[in-house]
């Protein structure tokens, strides 16, 4: 990169700053940290889905060579409260508009009296090595009295079901209902009505790096340093301060390099609090590195809905009424509350104008691993329902699925479009910008056109080959609040140092925020230092979840930069004895317009602005070049996309091969198109994994059947088709950069797109694929039907 062209980084595929260290093997992940005197933690985890803990005895465990410390859940519960602020509260605008009853179960840091899912920790051991710690865990003598396992979420919410959290009196811990228009009347008078049961299965973020936490306590200063493989360092610090009774400023939480997260590391887990507590208690640094089996058992799972949907429409395919009641299998706890469930409801209407709508939700507790957001966070489930129904409407009327969609789509002339429901931030949902029909038409063009495909499909069928075309459209609220922070300063070297609450997990944040900052300051990108995922660099931050960081951090950086630039100009004006209006910021200097020789460098300005005897700042002005801003977005920006895929089915095996996959994606203005492309493609392949390969399965006793990578199948390069992504760039009016979020989008549509394509391919057999994942054996069975 040359320093010649400072401005205009936004919109260019600037190479990543992160690459070099990662390619050299010099990345630093939690498992790479070595702290002097460190001990290794391992957890004893329940092998039963539901049981009362009768006894836990550590005598043999502590006698194992290398064992240092052991503790059970009941003792820990006396030392530390359940995770407190985990449950995202309901904003006012939401609470007023959505009927709701929410009583979420508290989660002790470790099981103290009963275990509620296979994998729940009930004890922890520290030892000289992870090997020794695992030996000691095996030597714990624990007694359990089995309780009936509640595995099926529908049975769980039945009145006679065994109650998993007796204090709550029910397993149906949340119920939500929201409505617009008059669904009952519109449904009753609709010329056509169809009802379907649609299931989205349980799968998970499954980052390649498992979770991990390391902590060091300094007795002299009574302070803690915590390294966690997390997407939310500030949130971890907040909970730690509360749980440990320490000042936030005495705790520093960092996320070093993180090997993927995708939402699975997006909330505070018990281990985030237990490991620091242990470090303080034992007086030695403690490191816990989750292994893969543990990760599959214990890190949050996601999706897992059963929908009963009904749709009313007329002969032209216009949707008149839409109702969807669904149940979310929450697992044993609900770490981030009912937000994901409502997210599903809020995304059911998608890019369509539908006047009468009702969405009802039950969140059911079962004896499974807790359910929490994963890339898409409730949207893939919603989009599966709506987009399957679109195809079924088309099939009922003998129309092309594309035509039904176009018939109901909100055109660009209706932007901004009032959806008529509140978003989960409490603000009325308003689609801000975009051209949904153009996006769908583009996707169809890219895949080669419907008519051409139908001809090909016809010919292929005559040859005994089975091709199918699937479509899928969605809208996605991105850049959600409540806020993000950024501190911007010009340090003594003249470099611009930026820190924000974003916690990168591979997206390239260091690069993207350097681009944003370099443009804001009109400096070469090399002059920007980006500090991330470290609570010591920023007082309040939120973190990287929910497709929000580029939007929210960029805005906070821009705002803080404006404040600092104002100071810079004031100092420069003073030094140059010029009027501020005549000055411009360029190439790391402030110069008098038209007189480039009359200039001072940022370094000189920083020296002049510093406090002290040598300060040369304007009289009465504050010393230093530093400002912090907290950006509180008015509400979300709406990204959207249209997908099209062609599949071919092998008739003798039912194997589904994806021939082509196209997504036309619009996330507003792209800061770094190359990285945006990578985000979307990576998400798409996760969605394809969910469609065809990935599934978390339990038996009737609540035993996990997919506890290894041999049974939980991530797609490899060989299963992955070439993916084509087209970017439309309709800027959002909601922020000055025009950017929307895009981290999650890719993962939303593929499950239903593939379901639609497979259903299309097998249309002569009249089989609908309304249940995910799509199993080859069910596809094969269609040929026998």
């Amino acid at each position, binding site marked *: 990169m040359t320093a010649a062209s400072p401005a205009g980084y936004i919109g260019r595929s600037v190479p990543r700053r992160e690459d070099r260290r990662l390619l050299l093997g010099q990345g630093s992940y939690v498992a790479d940290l070595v702290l002097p005197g460190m001990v290794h933690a391992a957890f004893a985890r329940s092998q039963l889905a539901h049981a009362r803990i009768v006894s836990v005895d550590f005598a043999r465990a502590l006698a194992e060579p290398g064992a240092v410390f052991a503790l059970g859940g009941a003792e820990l519960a006396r030392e530390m409260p359940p995770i407190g602020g985990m449950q995202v509260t309901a904003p006012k605008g939401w609470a007023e508009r959505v009927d709701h009853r929410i009583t979420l179960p508290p989660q002790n840091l470790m099981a103290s009296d009963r275990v509620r899912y296979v994998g729940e920790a009930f004890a922890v051991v520290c030892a000289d090595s992870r090997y020794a710690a695992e030996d000691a865990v095996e030597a714990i003598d624990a007694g359990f009295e089995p309780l009936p396992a509640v595995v099926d979420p529908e049975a769980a919410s039945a009145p006679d079901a065994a109650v998993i959290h007796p204090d709550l009196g029910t397993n149906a811990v949340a119920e939500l209902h929201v409505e617009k228009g008059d669904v009952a009347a519109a449904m009753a008078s609709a010329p056509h009505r169809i009802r379907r049961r649609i299931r989205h299965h349980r799968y998970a973020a499954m*980052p390649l790096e498992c979770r991990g936490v390391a902590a060091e306590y300094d007795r002299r200063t009574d302070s803690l340093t915590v390294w966690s493989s997390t997407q939310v360092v500030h949130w971890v610090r907040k909970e730690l301060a509360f749980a440990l009774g320490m000042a936030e400023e005495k705790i520093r939480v960092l996320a070093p390099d993180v090997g993927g997260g995708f939402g699975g590391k997006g909330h505070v887990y018990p281990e985030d609090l237990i490991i620091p507590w242990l470090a303080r208690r034992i007086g030695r640094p403690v490191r816990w590195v989750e292994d893969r089996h543990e990760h599959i058992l214990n890190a949050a799972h996601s999706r897992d809905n059963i929908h009963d949907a009904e749709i009313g429409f007329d002969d032209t395919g216009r949707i008149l009424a839409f109702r969807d009641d669904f149940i979310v299998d929450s697992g044993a706890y609900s770490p981030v509350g009912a937000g994901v469930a409502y997210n599903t409801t809020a995304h059911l209407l998608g890019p369509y104008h539908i006047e009468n709508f009702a969405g009802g939700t039950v969140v059911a507790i079962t004896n499974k691993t807790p359910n929490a957001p994963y890339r898409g966070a409730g949207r893939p489930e919603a989009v599966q329902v709506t987009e399957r129904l679109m195809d079924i409407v088309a099939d009922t009327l003998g129309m092309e699925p594309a035509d039904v969609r176009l018939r109901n789509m909100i055109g660009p002339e209706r932007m901004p479009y009032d959806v008529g429901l509140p978003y989960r931030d409490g603000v009325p949902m308003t689609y801000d910008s975009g051209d949904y029909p153009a996006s769908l038409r583009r996707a169809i063009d890219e895949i080669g056109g419907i008519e051409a495909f139908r001809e090909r499909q016809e010919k292929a069928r005559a040859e005994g080959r089975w091709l199918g075309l699937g479509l899928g459209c969605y809208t996605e609220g991105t850049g959600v609040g409540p806020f993000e922070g950024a501190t911007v300063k010009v340090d003594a070297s003249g470099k611009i140092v930026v820190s924000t609450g974003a916690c990168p997990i591979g997206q390239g944040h260091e690069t993207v925020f350097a681009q944003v900052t370099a443009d804001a300051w009109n400096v070469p990108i090399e002059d920007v230092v980006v500090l991330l995922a470290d609570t010591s660099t920023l007082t309040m931050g939120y973190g990287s979840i929910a497709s929000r960081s580029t939007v929210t951090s960029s805005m906070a950086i821009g705002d803080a930069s404006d404040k600092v630039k104002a100071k810079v100009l004031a100092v420069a004006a003073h030094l140059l004895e010029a009027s501020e209006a005549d000055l411009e910021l360029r190439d790391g200097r402030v110069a008098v317009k038209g007189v480039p020789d009359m200039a001072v460098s940022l370094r000189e300005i920083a020296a002049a602005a510093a406090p002290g005897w040598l300060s040369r700042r304007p009289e009465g002005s504050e010393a230093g070049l530093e400002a912090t801003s907290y950006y509180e977005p008015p509400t979300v920006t709406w990204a959207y996309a249209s997908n099209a895929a062609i599949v071919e089915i092998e008739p003798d095996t039912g194997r589904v091969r994806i021939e082509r996959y196209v997504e036309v994606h619009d996330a507003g203005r792209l800061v770094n198109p190359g990285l945006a492309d990578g985000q979307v493609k990576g998400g798409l392949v996760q969605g394809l994994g969910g469609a065809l390969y990935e599934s978390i399965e339990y038996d009737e006793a609540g035993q996990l059947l997919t506890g290894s990578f041999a049974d939980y199948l991530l797609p490899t390069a060989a299963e992955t088709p*070439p993916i084509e992504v087209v970017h439309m760039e309709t800027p959002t009016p909601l922020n000055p950069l025009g950017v929307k979020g895009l981290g999650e989008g890719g993962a939303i549509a593929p499950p239903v797109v593939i379901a639609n394509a497979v259903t299309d391919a097998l249309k002569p057999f009249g089989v609908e694929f309304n249940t995910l994942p799509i199993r080859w054996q069910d596809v094969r069975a269609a040929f026998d039907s």
Partner: protein
Amino acid sequence: MTAKRSVTVTVNGETRTGEAEPRMLLSDFLRDTLGLTGTHVGCEHGICGACTVHVDGEAARSCLMLAVQADGAEIETVEGLADGETLHRLQQLFSKHRALQCGFCTPGMLMTALDLVRHRPNLTEAEIRSGMAAVLCRCTGYEGIVHAVAEYASGGER
């Protein structure tokens, strides 16, 4: 015999000795005993491939070997690829084709690709996809990886 033994390996051309219990995995020996944390561990049951290193010139899973089995072996890890400050050509191509995001799979991807290209001439894209299926990536969707390996293979270096 469960006691620690001395294990000597040549890693990236350097002779290194460390102590290991017989049960210690080669991955842990490289990472914890020798401090070579570039080799990553993503599953410890042979599937993810993040731990792939070269043992006596061929790619192998370091999580499925005991350190004591590597005594006397020549091992190459990701740390040995660059020539001083200059990235190996495949590393450069990974960056160029955006073949990495979080970087966790990257060491295994690099070591696997080098072995594949070295021992299999004239790779087609399908063969690259199948060969690289030995390593999982959760971030990139593989496209950049396939392109980087394809360009490297066509350049025929090493």
